[in-house]
């Protein structure tokens, strides 16, 4: 039960950190605190949060999926190619999300069926999906499809696919009132993931598998089915992140999100998840994503070059984990001492 309050306090600490960060940045540069500005600047980084939410579920089981960054690009280029081929945009979105979920489900199947480390499998799939994403346009070219416009399929590879309809780009650039659409999409996905993780049997299964896969198996948890589902969900989330980014850039590219891996994993770990599994929360990931995103925005607003930002993000990642390890060591030591004291007290009482 003690760990339950600890979770709460970690998320609370993140919320406090977020508020503090905004206040400090606002004090340095008052223009930063413009509420509309604050809300709309999230569009620059919410794709990281969406992908991180999916990864949180996977990391809960003690696994990892680094191929999400490639699925983002794959979903983007699938959407673009489907659109160019004349598929209605709504169907193209469904297709892209479906490809993402399938890609994830494939990862999950291989991971559930073999004992190979998930990192190795998703590393292979990271290359594979990235290669398919960059190769798809040329494949269509070789299959004899023709395309209007200069450069043909080759150009798609380098320049991306533009001219996506307004109804789609609205997801990335539009908003309802003061709230931008990407943030709404992110909040919805995070809410659904929170519900899945904390209110359903599926969520308990994830936790049990993360604590001990063998015990989960022996107690009748459908381990394989759960793993395939959770990796599929991660693929879906990564595809959604890719589509939001596509709509925001109004450009479907195969290399979207390729640089996001460090940020995604940092958001998950800063959010309180343990990469050994059995620990983590979607809300934590969401808040951590906001903290990191605003940190980047704020540093850039302060005139710090974007080159320094990864140095700071890396330091935050390492610092957080080091802090958590230090805190848990301290707790263990305190608990040990308390146990020792009670023991000694009991001994002296018995003796005297």
């Amino acid at each position, binding site marked *: 039960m003690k760990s339950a309050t600890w979770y709460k306090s970690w998320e609370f600490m993140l919320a406090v950190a977020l508020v503090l960060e905004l206040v400090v940045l606002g004090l340095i540069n008052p223009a930063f605190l413009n509420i509309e500005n604050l809300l709309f600047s999230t569009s620059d980084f919410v794709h990281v949060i969406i992908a991180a939410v999916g990864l949180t579920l996977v990391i809960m089981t003690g696994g*990892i999926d680094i191929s999400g960054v490639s699925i983002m690009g794959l979903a983007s280029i699938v959407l673009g190619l489907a659109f160019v081929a004349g598929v209605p945009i709504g169907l193209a979105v469904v297709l892209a999300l479906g490809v993402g979920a399938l890609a994830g489900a494939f990862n999950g199947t*291989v991971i559930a069926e*073999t*004992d*190979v*480390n998930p*990192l*190795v*499998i998703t*590393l*292979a*799939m*990271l*290359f*594979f*999906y*990235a*290669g*398919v994403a*960059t*190769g798809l*346009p*040329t494949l269509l070219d070789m299959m004899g499809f023709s395309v209007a416009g200069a450069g043909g399929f080759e150009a798609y*590879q380098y320049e991306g696919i533009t001219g996506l309809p307004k109804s789609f780009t609205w997801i990335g650039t539009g908003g309802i009132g003061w709230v931008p659409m990407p943030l709404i999409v992110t909040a919805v996905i995070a809410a659904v993931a929170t519900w899945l993780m904390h209110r359903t049997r599926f969520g308990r299964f994830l936790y049990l598998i993360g604590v001990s896969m063998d015990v989960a198996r022996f107690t009748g948890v459908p381990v394989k089915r759960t793993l395939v589902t959770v990796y599929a969900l991660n693929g879906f989330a990564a595809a959604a992140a890719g589509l939001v980014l596509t709509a925001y850039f109004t450009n479907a590219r195969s290399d979207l999100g390729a640089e996001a*891996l*460090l940020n995604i*994993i*940092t958001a998950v*770990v800063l959010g309180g998840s343990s*990469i*050994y599994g059995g620990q983590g929360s979607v809300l934590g990931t969401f808040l951590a994503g906001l903290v990191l995103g605003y940190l980047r925005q704020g540093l850039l607003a302060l005139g710090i*070059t974007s*080159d*320094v*930002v*990864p*140095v*700071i*993000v*890396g*330091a935050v*990642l*390492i610092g957080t*984990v*080091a802090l958590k*390890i230090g805190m848990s060591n301290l707790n263990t030591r305190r608990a040990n001492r308390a146990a020792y004291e009670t023991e000694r007290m009991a001994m002296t009482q018995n003796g005297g």
Partner: protein
Amino acid sequence: MMKIFKSREFLVLVLLIVMILSVATVNKAVLYPFTLINIVNSSLFLMLIAIGQMFVVQTRGIDVSVGAIAGLAAVIFGFALNAGIPLPLSMLLALLTGFVGGFINGIGVAIIGIPPIIMTLGTLGAYRGFMRVLTGGSWIESIPQSIKSFAVTRYLNVPLMVWAVAILVIVVAVLLWKIKPARNFYAVGDNADGAYLLGINVTATRIAAFSLSGVFAGAAAIVFVGQIGFVPMQTGNGQELKAIAAVVLGGVSLMGGTGSIWSAVIGALFLTAVDSMMIFLKVPGSWNNAVAGAVLLAVVVFDYLIRRTVRNRQLAARAAEMRRAEQDAEPGQPMEARS
């Protein structure tokens, strides 16, 4: 002798030869010595960082910062050469940069206890950012072009650089074979607690593995600068994942305790050869990653299937043996009724 044939290194080597020969049926140019030497030549960078990676993976770690360390070392190397520091000293500086980068990773993992993937992912961002800060984001050019003589000068048609790396690989292989403490890497990776009880300094071994990884990344940086003669900002970008792929392909398990230097060498050769084969098959270069990923997946899954079959067979044999022992214990039973 049988052990060699059964090893994963050998399997991948056979796959590599089969791949080259089957491509040769389509395009004979693959078998020209010039082509083969070129494949080896362009695999040198990956090979060196993969060798470094091997030490870390053997101790059940992972180092995703090697590409960034190589980039940082390349920048320091470039700066040193431009400052007129003599070549051997500049090389030493590059190796030292790599060592420091790896040593920091080792401290974080072995002493503070941060999971290796988190620690090195953090330093990946940090080192890469630091590299851009140092150079202000611009390429380092105007490096004395004499540095390229290593890559251009050929002895027996093979670039000096290839000879140098080949000698380095053999020396390291012999050292790993002859020096006793080198086996600590296996022991720590296989069972850290057991190694500790045997009196092996687990912390020092882990730090040494990460430091070696950094040193080899520094060596890779020297090769890289020697081959192209300047330092672009992308130096080593994305190579860390390729290095991990190479060692895993060559048979180093991420669970630690297995693999050899040949895993890294053959894995790196294979991944580089895949890229070249695509050219000879006239497949667009955009498919390279897809093929590399598919090969890696196929090899690890195939390896799993083999291991599972072997294990099942062992279990079956043991079960049969136990049944027989039971039978011997009850002499009254007729033998025929059993089987």
